[in-house]
């Protein structure tokens, strides 16, 4: 009688649905921090601010991203503002990009305004956001085209 409970304890609990995933929340006042000794293998999506000091192997989408000195990112970075002081292997796409002297960027930078400090290592193309589509850019977050398709379907 009791031995049965040992056999399939997990299966028994399955019918009760697991809690539903919460809806994405508003940006928090403070930035999320990926600390120096943390290694993430996967993607990060953030509607607020993100500070990366550790290693990320995956894509980052955020409102603002700061890649700190000593941080390593392997993957694309998409945000509204990006500050790079660490190393990135992958494409960076943001309206505002600043590259510090300690940075090492291997990949393209798609930007509207770009600031590069003397001493930064840059290996890749720098393109303006407006020319992104023509140059075969990456998946769109905010398209540069001014066409307003959405107005027709607005309810």
């Amino acid at each position, binding site marked *: 009688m009791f031995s049965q409970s040992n056999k399939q304890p997990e299966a028994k609990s399955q019918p*009760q649905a697991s809690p539903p995933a919460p809806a994405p929340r508003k940006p*928090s006042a403070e930035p*999320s921090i990926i600390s*120096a*000794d943390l*290694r993430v293998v996967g993607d*990060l*999506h953030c509607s*607020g601010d993100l500070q990366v000091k550790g290693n990320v192997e995956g894509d980052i989408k955020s409102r603002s991203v700061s890649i700190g000195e000593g941080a390593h990112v392997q993957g694309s970075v998409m945000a509204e503002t990006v500050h790079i002081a660490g190393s990135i292997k992958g494409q960076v796409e943001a309206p505002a990009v600043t590259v510090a002297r300690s940075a090492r960027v291997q990949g393209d930078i798609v930007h509207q305004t770009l600031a590069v400090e003397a001493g930064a290592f840059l290996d890749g193309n720098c393109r303006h956001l407006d020319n992104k589509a023509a140059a075969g850019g990456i998946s769109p977050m905010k398209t540069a085209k001014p066409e307003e398709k959405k107005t027709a379907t607005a309810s």
Partner: protein
Amino acid sequence: MFLNIGTVRDHLTARAGDSVWPDSASDTYTVIHSDLVITGDLRTDGHIEVNGRIEGTSNSRSILVREDGWIEGSILADIAEIRGTVVGAVRATTVIIGSNARVHGSIFHNSLTIEPGAQLEGRRPWRPQIDRKQETA
């Protein structure tokens, strides 16, 4: 009166010889706020504080899942304090479950504290030791 979490931590601190939660300004302190969703695995020898969402496994020295925190995946740690939602197995030497916690999965522990009110679904097997460095999360 029910066991105060503060005393548990004090006890741990005395046993471990150093602070259980590292200083939030230290290099080993990761904060995942409510606006961040991580789809993938985390690994660190430091501390992770989760207010946001992780879809994947985490392996850390210590982890604190706050009320708003939500993890779908397994947790491996030396010390795990869970006050939010975890869908997946928890493996930690010391596990503290808060009163608002929801855990859907087994809790492998060497020492377990559960506050009244926690919603736990799954087994809670005791283990003589849990070595997070040898196990794969």
